[in-house]
C-alpha cells in the first residue's frame, strides 16, 4: 500500500498527484514551483519505496504514462502531465 505524502497549499481546486524521484532535478523543480505558488499536492517518491511498494508505484505510473518517466503528474484523477511543465503548473494556481 502506497503512502503518499501531502503538502498543504491555498489552491485546492484540483487534485494534484505526483509520482517523482528524489534524485531528479525536474521533479524537484515541479515540487518547488507548486509550493511557491501554494498549490496543494500529494506525492510518492517512487525511488524511495521499499520492496513490493516500488513495483506497485511503478505499475501505477505505467497506467498513466507508458514511458514510466518522472515527474508524472495526475490532475483530478483524469489528466496526466509528463515532465516539468511550468505552464501547466502555473495554470493550477490561476484557477
Amino acid at each position, binding site marked *: 500500500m502506497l503512502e503518499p505524502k501531502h503538502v498543504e497549499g491555498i489552491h485546492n481546486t484540483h487534485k494534484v498527484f505526483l509520482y517523482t*524521484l*528524489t*534524485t*531528479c*532535478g*525536474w*521533479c*524537484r*523543480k515541479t515540487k518547488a514551483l507548486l509550493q511557491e505558488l501554494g498549490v496543494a499536492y500529494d506525492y510518492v517518491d*517512487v*525511488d524511495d519505496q521499499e520492496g513490493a511498494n516500488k513495483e506497485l508505484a*511503478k505499475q501505477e505510473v505505467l497506467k498513466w504514462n*507508458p*514511458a*514510466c*518517466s*518522472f515527474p508524472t503528474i495526475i490532475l483530478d484523477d483524469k489528466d496526466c502531465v*509528463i*515532465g*516539468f*511543465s511550468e505552464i501547466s503548473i502555473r495554470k493550477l494556481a490561476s484557477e
Partner: protein
Amino acid sequence: MSRISDERVAEVWGRLVLEARDAGYSINPDDGFARDLVRGLLENEVRYGYRACPCRLASGEQERDLDLVCPCDYRDADLDEYGTCYCALYVSSEISRGEKAATSIPDRRPVGGPPASAEEMERVHVAGLTFPVWRCKVCGYLCARPQPPLVCPVCKAGKERFERFM
C-alpha cells in the same frame, strides 16, 4: 536528509565540469540545479553501486542499467536534438552560455532498457585486422587494441560501456 555531504558534491561537480570542458561538453550553467543532479548521482551510487541517471528509475541491476549510467548512452543524441541530456546535467554550448534555457525533454530510452537483441550491434567484418576495434557506446570513440580501455579517453565512460565494432 541527504547522505552525501556538500563537500563531496562540490568536489565531484567540480571534476565533472572540468572533464566536460576538456571533452567538448558543457555542464548545466545553473550551478544549484547541476549540483543537485550530482548529489542524485552520488545518492544512486550509494543506493545501487553505480551512478544511474538521477531522472530515471534504475532497476538496481547494473547489467540492465548500463545504458543509463551517467553519461548515459542517450546523452549525445539528446544534446543534438534538444540541446540538453535527459536530466539536463549536460547541455549544449548555447544553453551553457545562457542564450537558451534547458527544458524537460521526453525520454528516448526504451521502457525497461534496450532490448537484449539490440545489445549486440551488427559487426562490420573486415579481413586482416591486427586488432579488434572497440566502440564507446556513450560517445562513439573508436580504438583498435586487444581490449577496450579501462576508461574512455573522450567521455570517461567505463570499459563496460564499450562494444566490439569490427
